[in-house]
């Protein structure tokens, strides 16, 4: 009896972050601001007052602060799926900047897709089996 054929696709592992171990998706936050322009004023006050506690509460995130002269302030989030999200901060107060940063920290970096009808996404095969007309008892009247 020959050994059963081993297909290459059987040796792949299916990703399920959070099943046994959870790894947060976000890996880096980059704040870019201007020293001079008034549009960066709220961003500067956020960086001076709230940034350190934010970095301490999220030790898994690398927090970077960069200068971006004569440009509007932005925050970039880099994720483990090699995508990034950019949010402009020019019209936002400090509390609103905090909400945008929380949005970046909570996100997975995946592209925004319609989630209204995707309640349960499963890769497990049907537990009770799938009915097949060719393998069922023949109906009798």
């Amino acid at each position, binding site marked *: 009896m020959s050994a059963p054929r081993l297909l290459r696709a059987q040796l792949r592992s*299916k990703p*399920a*972050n*959070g*099943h*046994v171990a*959870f790894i*947060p*998706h976000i890996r880096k936050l980059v704040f870019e601001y201007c020293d001079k322009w008034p549009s960066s004023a709220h961003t500067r006050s956020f960086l001076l007052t709230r940034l350190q506690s934010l970095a301490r509460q999220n030790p898994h995130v690398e927090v970077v602060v960069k200068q971006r002269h004569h440009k509007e302030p932005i925050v970039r989030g880099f994720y483990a799926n090699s995508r990034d999200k950019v949010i402009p901060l020019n019209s936002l107060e400090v509390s609103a900047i905090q909400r945008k940063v929380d*949005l970046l*920290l*909570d*996100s*997975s970096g*995946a592209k*925004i*897709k*319609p*989630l*209204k009808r*995707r*309640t*349960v*996404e*499963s*890769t*497990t*095969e049907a*537990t*009770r*089996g799938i009915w097949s007309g060719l*393998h*069922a*008892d023949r109906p009798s009247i």
Partner: protein
Amino acid sequence: MRRIAPLRTFVARAAHTNAVVPSSTASALELIRSQPSQYVVASFAGRKYILTPRDMLTVPHLRDVKIGDVLTLDEIHELGSREYTLRGNPVIPSSRVKVEATVVEHTKGNMEYKFKKKRRKGYRKTIQHKQPYTRLRIGDIEIPIEQQS
């Protein structure tokens, strides 16, 4: 005429197993645990879902949870496998079956546009809306073995 006997024997084997009525809950759980895969029917945030391990469950935004939090499903109405099902009365207690879910992310769905107009009245407006969701990953279904003290 071609013989179709092999197909018939396969059908006989794949037909329903004989009904068993286990004497105790522990033996019923043992039957279910012995099968290769199980599912649960559980209530979460007011709605019932059929869940298996490694599923991604998307529910409307939960306020008091952070990502990485682990939640235990305590309203499990049904536990089943390929051939056996155990129905709770109305719930199976969490000492018998334990299922955990990890909060993976808080996201928003895509932008929905609602256009409102009343004709000949100069009233028109567009409402843009992004529904926030919370996504959870379902962990393994644990059926602990009863310790006889």
